[in-house]
């Protein structure tokens, strides 16, 4: 889909090339993440693909066509672009910002409106609330969502995303990443994604291209990169705790069926039975659900002594945090560490209980895969 051949860029007046003899092939529907330290040429590479920068050497093929021969305006209209600095237009409302490409393509007004509102919902911004606001009235994370929405509104087959989740806190970032992956699963776009966060790279990518001082060091699947880093630079970048990083690669729903766990207790179950269940449980607790299988709470050993009553519902206390099954095992680990518990309850969007993941399960995975 995208093929870079011996691509180079020397900025006028610089002796060292910003990008040097880069060869990279990205398959249709893949997310290729460019990682590397600051200044290694990630942004420069990306800007050559949509020809904001003219390469000083090499070739770019898009669907087999020589991109350097194409009309740059046409080329850019069909490549979604999220710029590193977000670059929202301060004098336009969110709706007008997102409608930029449709307006350039002269779509009918009502079709544009419709599509803008769709894509806002997709990135988690309520159109009713946000469409008439100006960028100055948005938080950093909301602006990044607008940036992403603006890039994807015309449904371009290719997207270039330069650190699209750079300016947000880790929790929001994880949520945006998960939303992105969910959307991408449906859309199957070909995406070049820049980050200098290796964890993000491992989580988001089909392939990772590691760059250093303008050169491509290794291009591999995240799993191969973790198990066989090409050289010391890559293994340093990946870091020492590689087995923990594997937790990024596995989603909860992939192991949820395999983990063997006691059934949850219903809230009107006799406390005597529940007590036995708790004794047998490896986390010394039992999850309690109501009759719709909605998560009600949890009963630990200490709750049995502290409270009194006839049925499970009388004893249970609130669960601090839960997780959905499309999150990664690494997300599950973060939640456990944050809550200081050895387990986390998995629920669906309607808060219905789907299972429990424990620290032991994570250890097993790391052991098996490592």
């Amino acid at each position, binding site marked *: 889909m995208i093929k870079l051949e011996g691509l180079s860029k020397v900025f006028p007046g610089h002796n060292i090339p910003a990008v040097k003899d880069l060869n990279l092939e990205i398959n249709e529907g893949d997310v290729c993440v460019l990682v590397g330290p600051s200044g290694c040429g990630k942004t420069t590479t990306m*800007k050559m693909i*949509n020809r*904001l920068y003219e390469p000083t050497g090499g070739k770019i093929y898009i669907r087999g066509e020589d991109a350097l021969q194409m009309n740059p*305006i*046409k*080329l*850019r*209209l069909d490549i979604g*672009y999220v*710029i*590193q*600095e*977000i*670059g*929202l*237009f*301060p*004098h*336009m409302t969110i709706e007008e910002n997102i409608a*930029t*490409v449709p307006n*350039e393509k002269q779509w009918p007004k009502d079709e544009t409106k419709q599509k803008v509102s769709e894509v806002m919902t997709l990135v988690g911004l309520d159109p009713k609330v946000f469409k008439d606001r*100006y960028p*100055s009235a948005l938080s950093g994370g909301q602006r990044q969502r607008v940036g992403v929405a*603006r*890039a994807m509104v015309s449904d371009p087959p290719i997207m*270039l995303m330069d650190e699209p989740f750079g300016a947000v806190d880790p929790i929001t970032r994880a949520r945006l990443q998960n939303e992105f992956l969910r959307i991408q699963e449906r859309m199957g776009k070909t995406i070049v994604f820049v980050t200098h966060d290796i964890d993000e790279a491992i989580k988001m990518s089909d392939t990772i291209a590691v760059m250093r001082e303008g050169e491509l060091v290794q291009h591999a699947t995240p799993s191969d990169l973790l198990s066989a880093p090409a050289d010391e630079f890559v293994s340093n970048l990946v870091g020492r705790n590689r087995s923990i990083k594997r937790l990024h690669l596995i989603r909860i729903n992939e192991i949820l069926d395999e983990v063997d766990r006691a059934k949850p207790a219903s809230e009107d179950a006799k406390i005597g039975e529940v007590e036995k269940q708790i004794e047998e449980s490896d986390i010394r607790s039992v999850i309690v659900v109501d009759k719709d299988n909605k998560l009600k709470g949890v009963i630990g050993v200490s709750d049995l002594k502290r409270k009194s009553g006839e049925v499970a519902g009388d004893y249970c206390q609130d669960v601090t945090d839960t997780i959905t099954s499309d999150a990664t095992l690494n997300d599950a680990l973060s939640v456990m560490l944050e809550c200081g518990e050895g387990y986390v309850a998995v629920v669906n969007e309607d808060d219905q209980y789907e299972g429990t993941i424990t620290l032991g399960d994570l250890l097993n995975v790391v052991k098996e895969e490592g």
Partner: protein
Amino acid sequence: MAREIWKWLGIPLIMIAIAAVIVIYSVNNPTDSIVARMLTYERVFRVIREHMGLLLVSMTGAIIVGVAGGIMLSRPSLYRIGRVMETFVNIGQTVPSLAVLALFYTILGLGFNVAVFALFLYSILPILRNTFAGIDGVEHNIIEAARGMGMRPLRILTKIELPIAFPIIVAGIRTAIVINVGAATLATFIGGGGLGDLIVTGLSVHRDMIIVNGAVIAAVTAILLDYLIGKVEERVVRWA
């Protein structure tokens, strides 16, 4: 809606009323026969008309040429010249307006047209500089985002650069108007007419009342125009 209009027109009406009261009082209660002869409604209206003529013609020209010139100088091919121009304008503005008029008098002679031309040149400077600075000040990443999404240069100019620079361009126009109204009172020295007529006449016959009339009308005009443009700008620019 009615409230809104009053909020807009309240201050201008008060200003006009103050000026009108002063004019009416002075014309009806002249301190002596000299004032009575020199200060008539007819004359006041004539100098106001002349003054507005000077202002309107020179400002229209200055806005058109200043904005167009500022845009042109902000294009990559002329950008370096634009930077040089910025410095020159700052120097140029330190030249007193009286000197500008004197200069044009020696070159072009007397009359309304010469006065208009001098005012035009003098008013262009802040507009030219602000247009250039406003466009130049648009953040680079905003332009890059626009280019990256496939906007053509002309579209980027009209849809991105000019709207973002708009408040700064308007600030330049406001500065120009205030300077222009003041400088136009000097036009009378080279036979350009205007409110300066009253002031100069008043000075030569030592009658403060005539001077006050000319000065008050000029001041009210400057404040009024500045205020109205500010209000219009507030209306147009809702994003800042």
